[in-house]
């Protein structure tokens, strides 16, 4: 008999939280209410839970800060501003692949040029390096892709002419010497 009471108390205590919250159905409420009338320990447990809830409820609420709404409406205006910007056509991505391609082309061109240059001997190399230095000192060449392209063509022409004068090559290979 004692074992039955212990089991019953265990089941009742598991339901005390829901009983306290008024979330049991009518039958469940009746069973718990009747049990609490007879069982001192469960009644004590219920009292503890009730008082505990009361203690927790008494925690002071915090007040919103004085400028809470001002900050909120500021965020609203900022978000509305960002939405206008988002609706504009997104062209910022466009130059990046184009610039990347341009940089690859320039690096390939210059690398190819220097590879050829080193293959042609020290004197020619010194001549071309001096010319490169002079052109870098000149205005805008490193920054202006078209000027840089022209400069590369001029160096290529100089290399071609030098190759012909040194009898390394029998004909113009740059296509510019013959035009002059």
């Amino acid at each position: 008999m004692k074992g039955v009471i212990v089991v019953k108390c265990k089941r009742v205590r598991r339901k005390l939280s829901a009983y306290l919250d008024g979330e049991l159905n009518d039958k469940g409420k009746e069973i718990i209410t009747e049990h609490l009338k007879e069982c001192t320990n469960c009644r004590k447990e219920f009292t503890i839970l009730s008082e505990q809830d009361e203690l927790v409820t008494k925690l002071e609420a915090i007040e919103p800060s004085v400028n809470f709404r001002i900050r909120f409406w500021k965020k609203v205006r900022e978000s509305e501003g960002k939405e206008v910007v988002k609706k504009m056509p997104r062209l910022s991505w466009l130059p990046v692949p184009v610039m990347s391609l341009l940089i690859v082309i320039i690096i390939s061109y210059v690398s190819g040029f220097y590879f050829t240059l080193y293959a042609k001997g020290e004197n020619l190399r010194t001549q071309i390096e001096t010319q490169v230095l002079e052109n870098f000192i000149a205005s805008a060449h490193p920054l202006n892709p078209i000027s840089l392209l022209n400069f590369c063509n001029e160096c290529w022409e100089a290399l071609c002419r030098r190759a012909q004068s040194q009898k390394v090559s029998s004909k113009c290979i740059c296509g510019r010497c013959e035009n002059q």
Partner: protein
Amino acid sequence: MKILDDDIELMLSFQKGEKSCFEKILEKYEKPLINFIFRTIGDRWAAEDLTQEVFLRIYRSAATYKPLAKFSTWLYKIAFDLCIDHQRKGKVKTISLNDPINTEEGQIIREIPDLSQITPDTSIEKRQISETVQAAVLSLPANQRLALTLRIYENKSYQEISKILGCSISAVESLLFRARQNLKQKLSFLIGSFSD
């Protein structure tokens, strides 16, 4: 017969362009929401930021708003999701009462006063009790803390809590049972002395 609750009517009016209706929603819910989030994450200023984020989302969704659920359920669901995100970023103050407090001068061991020896008449002791209770609530696991806050402070039914937390009603019952048992272990020395 009134079909829609007041908050839904306010939201629908705001949707039609009556901005004053949104102010009324703000006025009604700013304090409860701040407190709900503060009791969940333990940081007052972060609670204000998150509350503003909740209202910002409500504001932005006005154009497409449809009253599919009770307004407050929807509001607290958004707040709950933001609290969970905040927790995932590791910013939630879940503390152990045994952890020392780190200060510039070094560590201070947290001392819980023996409140059974003190009468609750003075404001200092009242503040200490409040801090102890607040710390006990913050030390609960997140889901238990959320369920308890929604039940005790917001007076939400188990059904509403289940919709906000995205779990079953029996899971809510279980969360609240375990939350209260955990609190009982931490606050038993206070019960019976200061319930007046």
